[in-house]
């Protein structure tokens, strides 16, 4: 309970970080800006999306020649429903955080599924990206994934 003798005030810390992407994630974001989703093929043939800078098996650098188009559709491999989004969440209505394995990829990417209702969410749900109107080259260029049959 608030004590009338004790002062209180908002204390807001802001860190306006700018981060360098590196070559691989930079290219991934550049492709998102163009409306494409790219993964990267490792030496064992598996396709990683989002792309890795280094081959997870050999540790070698993966270069421009290893990029491959994936998606845009994919399937939910696991998910968690957010009943009450907070102000920093990407949507202002309930949604799912999900791991989505895009077509042609062997690994899954965390993103948002705007399913409207938790009852629509299932493992194996087919989804498609909903692109942002004005894309700038970051992960939010995909506003959310939506169920294919929506």
């Amino acid at each position, binding site marked *: 309970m608030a004590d009338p003798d004790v002062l209180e005030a*908002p204390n807001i810390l802001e860190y306006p970080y700018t*981060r360098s*992407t590196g070559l691989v994630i930079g290219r991934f974001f550049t492709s998102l800006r163009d409306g494409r989703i790219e993964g990267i093929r490792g030496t064992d043939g598996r396709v990683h999306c989002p792309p890795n800078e280094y081959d997870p098996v050999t540790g070698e650098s993966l270069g421009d020649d290893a990029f491959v188009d994936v998606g845009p559709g994919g399937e939910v491999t696991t998910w968690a429903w957010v009943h009450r989004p907070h102000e920093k969440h990407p949507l202002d209505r309930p949604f799912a955080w999900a791991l989505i394995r895009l077509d042609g990829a062997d690994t899954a990417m965390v993103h948002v599924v705007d399913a409207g209702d938790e009852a629509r969410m299932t493992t194996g749900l087919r989804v498609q990206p909903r692109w942002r109107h004005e894309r700038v*080259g970051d992960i939010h260029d995909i506003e959310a994934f939506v169920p294919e049959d929506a």
Partner: protein
Amino acid sequence: MAETTEPVTMIDTPIELRYRFTAGLAQSRFLRGVEQGRLLGQRCPQCKKVYVSPRGACAACGVPTDEEVEVSDTGTVTTFCVVNVPFYDQKMEIPYVSATILLDGADIGLMHLIQECPSEDVHMGMRVEAVWKPPEERTPSLESIKYFRPTGEPDADYESYGAHV
């Protein structure tokens, strides 16, 4: 547009943490004093040190500090920093000086700005005084003191503040 064909190399990832700060009883009394142009500290009953601003207990002795004492708004610069580096949301024009000031009667330094003199003139032992905002503009915040400025008195002997550097 060239801007949209260049490869992406940087992204903005702003972080914002929204806290609600509670000052506690001792600091609330201190801040209400500041609003009235007074600097109120607390003395430890064991080691007799005076804390400004007070936190309600002595960190060294681990006992409550119930005795309230008023200290002066003049003091001595113990350490200082000339800020030459611009940063986000900077309120001051650089260069400016941020200093630890040992108020007369206090045993712990208070951090504030030193103004009304060139930054290269600020030094350890310099005597300074608070420049308050007019009473109607004061709030329960150390911003009620605009800054400290040199008094023109001779420097304090190192022995008088050396234990607090």
